[in-house]
């Protein structure tokens, strides 16, 4: 029975656990409960992935109501892949969390923090697994609202401001998506994704379809932080608590990219988006501009969280570049970079959290010479940084290489050249931090610092280890991404 109900359990368990965390009250018990929930969710996602690999796409009707009357959950290779890494990150980040939030979030708020965390996780997983368009909007709003709340928990007075700006921009984006959904519903009479894909009049279709597409993609571009709609991201990542940045940076934008993939490829079809409309050119240009602008901005940052935030915008550009190729290789590159970037950025923000805890600051000038007193943490930064640059034997190389070869396959040589040049910018901003850590004279604070606690170091090294592991063992990253890409290109869900 559990086996049959896996898709819904994935959502129900964290959703029900969230208010229970608040009711439990006692923060340590609430933490353990929350942790167990996230591990249970991860186990469910692994089981789901195995089921999908064995049986193919799974369709689950909630409450046994057939679509279009009821809501359908669909687990295919792409959704189960994204669900798996989102839940894995949710579990690992929460394992890492206690020491960090003890310092950054007031104790009275901890139970509420765990509850909101679980709600955010629910929302993200729901976006990935749903087969109903309006349900997608609902889960999108659930995850967004909880992330606004989580971001506002930061210590700086700019945290609520950052959360407010994100809220306004994110709500505008979500409302655009809602408009798009409404127009699509008008045209087809159903909200079920598979149903819409069958009925949407795309060939010489009415203007409504074009408008719907435009609204939905722009709304999603805001959530994905595509240049120039990225302005919410740097402040949101910088002023949120370390754990929150870790989780959101690794998951939120990737899940929004998933939503974009679903809508563009499975509902509106590739042919409409890339041949009738100039989405390829638009994405390519926006992605490249975003990569260069964001990487350049990252070079000049002194606040390491802001540096990584700009780096994230650039890396999202790579994902979009892969998608814009719109062939099997390009999509594989984009999807595998979703995964690779999630583990790399998650890992790097974990390192930042370790330094924030021990040194009390995320300004690069306060980290000088920390390589001597906090060697493990500093080496972790070096490994994550190499992954960001895309050195072979790290996960970052796999997706960069796939992107490069797909650019050649589609005869976009300029894109290939530009993409490689932008990697050089990554070398600059990553290595600035490495040099500060290892080659500068220590300040008083760094000389007196101790290594980060094991509860934080072990999850960080699990992430670093996975960056190295998935650099050469790609059966569960790139191969799954390839399967997901082919299912996207082949047929609607």
């Amino acid at each position, binding site marked *: 029975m559990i086996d049959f109900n896996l898709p819904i359990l994935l959502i129900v368990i964290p959703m029900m656990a969230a208010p229970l965390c608040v009711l439990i009250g006692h923060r340590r018990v609430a933490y353990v409960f929350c942790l167990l929930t996230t591990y249970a969710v991860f186990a469910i996602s692994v089981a789901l992935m195995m089921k999908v690999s064995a049986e193919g796409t799974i369709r689950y009707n909630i409450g046994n109501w057939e679509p279009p009357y009821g809501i359908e959950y669909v687990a295919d290779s792409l959704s189960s892949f994204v669900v798996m890494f989102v839940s894995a990150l949710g579990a690992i980040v929460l394992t890492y969390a206690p020491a960090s939030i003890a310092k950054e979030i007031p104790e009275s708020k901890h139970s509420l923090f765990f509850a909101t965390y679980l709600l955010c996780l629910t929302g993200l997983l729901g976006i990935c697994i749903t087969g109903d368009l*309006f349900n997608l909007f609902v889960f999108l709003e659930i995850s967004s609202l909880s992330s*606004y709340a989580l971001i*506002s928990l930061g210590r700086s007075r700019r945290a*609520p*401001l950052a*959360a407010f700006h994100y809220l*306004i921009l994110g*709500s505008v984006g979500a409302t655009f998506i809602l408009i798009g959904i*409404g127009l699509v*519903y008008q045209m087809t009479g159903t909200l079920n994704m598979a149903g819409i894909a069958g009925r949407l009049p795309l060939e010489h279709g009415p203007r409504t379809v074009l408008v719907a597409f435009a609204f939905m993609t722009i709304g999603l571009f805001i959530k994905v932080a595509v240049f120039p709609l990225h302005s919410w991201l740097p402040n949101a990542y910088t002023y949120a608590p370390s754990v929150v940045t870790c989780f959101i940076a690794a998951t939120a934008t990737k899940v929004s990219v998933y939503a974009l993939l679903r809508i563009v490829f499975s509902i509106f079809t590739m042919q409409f988006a890339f041949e009738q409309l100039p989405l390829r050119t638009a994405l390519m240009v926006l992605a490249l501009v975003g990569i260069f602008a964001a990487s350049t901005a990252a070079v000049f940052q002194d606040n390491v969280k802001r540096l990584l935030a700009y780096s994230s915008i650039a890396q999202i550009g790579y994902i979009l570049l892969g998608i814009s190729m719109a062939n099997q290789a390009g999509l594989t590159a984009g999807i595998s970079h979703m995964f690779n970037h999630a583990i790399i950025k998650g890992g790097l923000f974990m390192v930042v959290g370790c330094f924030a805890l021990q040194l009390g600051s995320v300004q690069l000038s306060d980290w000088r010479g920390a390589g001597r007193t906090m060697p493990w943490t500093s080496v972790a930064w070096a490994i994550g940084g190499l992954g960001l640059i895309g050195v072979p034997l790290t996960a970052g190389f796999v997706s960069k290489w796939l992107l490069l070869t797909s650019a050649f396959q589609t005869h976009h040589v300029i894109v290939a050249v530009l993409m490689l040049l932008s990697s050089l910018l990554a070398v600059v901003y990553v290595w600035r931090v490495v040099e500060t850590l290892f080659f500068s004279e220590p300040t008083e604070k760094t000389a007196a610092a101790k290594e980060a606690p094991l509860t934080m170091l072990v999850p960080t090294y699990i992430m670093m280890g996975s960056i190295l592991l998935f650099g050469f063992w790609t059966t569960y990253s790139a191969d799954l991404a390839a399967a997901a890409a082919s299912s996207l290109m082949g047929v609607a869900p």
Partner: protein
Amino acid sequence: MNMEQIFGLYNYWIVICLMMTGFYIVIASPNMVKVVLGLNIFQTSVILMYVTMGKVEGGTAPIVPPSIANGHAAEAAIGHAAEAGHSIVAHAAETPLADVHAAAEAIVYSHPLPSVLMLTAIVVGIATTSLALALIVRIREDYGTIDENEVLEMDLQS
């Protein structure tokens, strides 16, 4: 664009006006509370769009009238009875029931689903608004003002 299109689509014109008004307020207003209100107007316009979308010309509220509802109840009862084996009674009652069905089919209803979807959207809007206002209260406590420009200045100075 002919008269039919301009006046016939009046609901969409209203939606567009509200939408742009709300969007303009979001972009242009320095007062944070007004920004939230602008967002609300923006979201309301979308709600209006859906709700008016569901309206069918000549359609009534999507509620089955009591008379037919009772007829349906009778049908259900007879159906039960038929199962219990009182088929003679069922046969006799079939023809009037067919009329009941037809009567029900003949009424034109507006589509209920968009309104239902908008219930959810309204709730989402409320949650967003309350969260935004809570954030504004926090900002007011930290900065002493809810004017964006003043907040920006204070940030640049520090």
